[in-house]
């Protein structure tokens, strides 16, 4: 798989592990109360697993296996793909951890903006690759 897909897949695995850890802590706390502040992990749990894990892994695999262009850059503009990877991960971290920071609402909005930019950049490079295998272009 290309280097960027490997970075994204590894990042997705880290998000999966962190998201499962937060979810596990909250579920255990529901059964046997541990600490009341654990419920604040919920936004991070949701964002890490929905965007950081599920969406990012799908994007990593799509960047790897979608039909390539006949001419370089074969997988689309790599700089835009890198921007998509960085923006999505920054967005997940900002949204997930905004409840702990000051300016929580501002950070939440900034995180959602980064996520949107990350996904939009991915669509920009992935959409032209959605074509019959072997076709030119």
């Amino acid at each position: 798989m290309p280097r960027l897909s490997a970075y994204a897949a590894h990042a997705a695995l880290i998000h999966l592990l962190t998201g499962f850890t937060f979810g596990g802590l909250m579920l255990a706390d529901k059964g046997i109360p541990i600490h009341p502040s654990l419920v604040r992990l919920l936004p991070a749990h949701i964002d890490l697993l929905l965007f950081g894990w599920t969406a990012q892994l799908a994007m990593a695999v799509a960047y790897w296996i979608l039909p390539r262009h006949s001419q370089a850059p074969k997988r689309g503009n790599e700089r835009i793909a890198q921007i998509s990877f960085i923006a999505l991960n920054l967005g997940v971290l900002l949204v997930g951890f905004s409840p702990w920071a000051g300016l929580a609402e501002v950070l939440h909005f900034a995180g959602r903006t980064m996520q949107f930019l990350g996904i939009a950049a991915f669509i920009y490079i992935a959409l032209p690759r959605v074509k019959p295998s072997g076709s030119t272009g």
Partner: protein
Amino acid sequence: MPRLTRWYLRSALLYLVLALLVALLLAARPLAMLPPALLRLQPTFFHLFMVGWVTQLIFGVVYWMFPKYSREQPHRSETLAWSTFILLNLGLLLRVIAEPLHSPGETSPWGFLLALSALLQWFAGVGFVINTWSRVKVR
């Protein structure tokens, strides 16, 4: 398709049906005057869908399609992979049973089962990450 992937995909489909049945029950609650305690099934529904269906489908396909670990061990550790599958399903089933029966804030055997369910699913996550990490390779 490896045997473990077939198990993952079949149980994923089963959980999808189960998730939709729970969603149906939740939607019927106000119409059929069903007890408000059924609302406790809301997180069960989300997790049947996201862990039982989405995550298991991904785990199964990754186990099958990701680059081989080595010629001798294409899926890295078969034992760890099967343990992951069993732990995830045991943990999720325990949650499905214990969560609606447990009243938050009370100490009950269902609460202990919920905590055990959390631990089993967490171990499943760790097992999957360990087995998959080194199969993510640049070529």
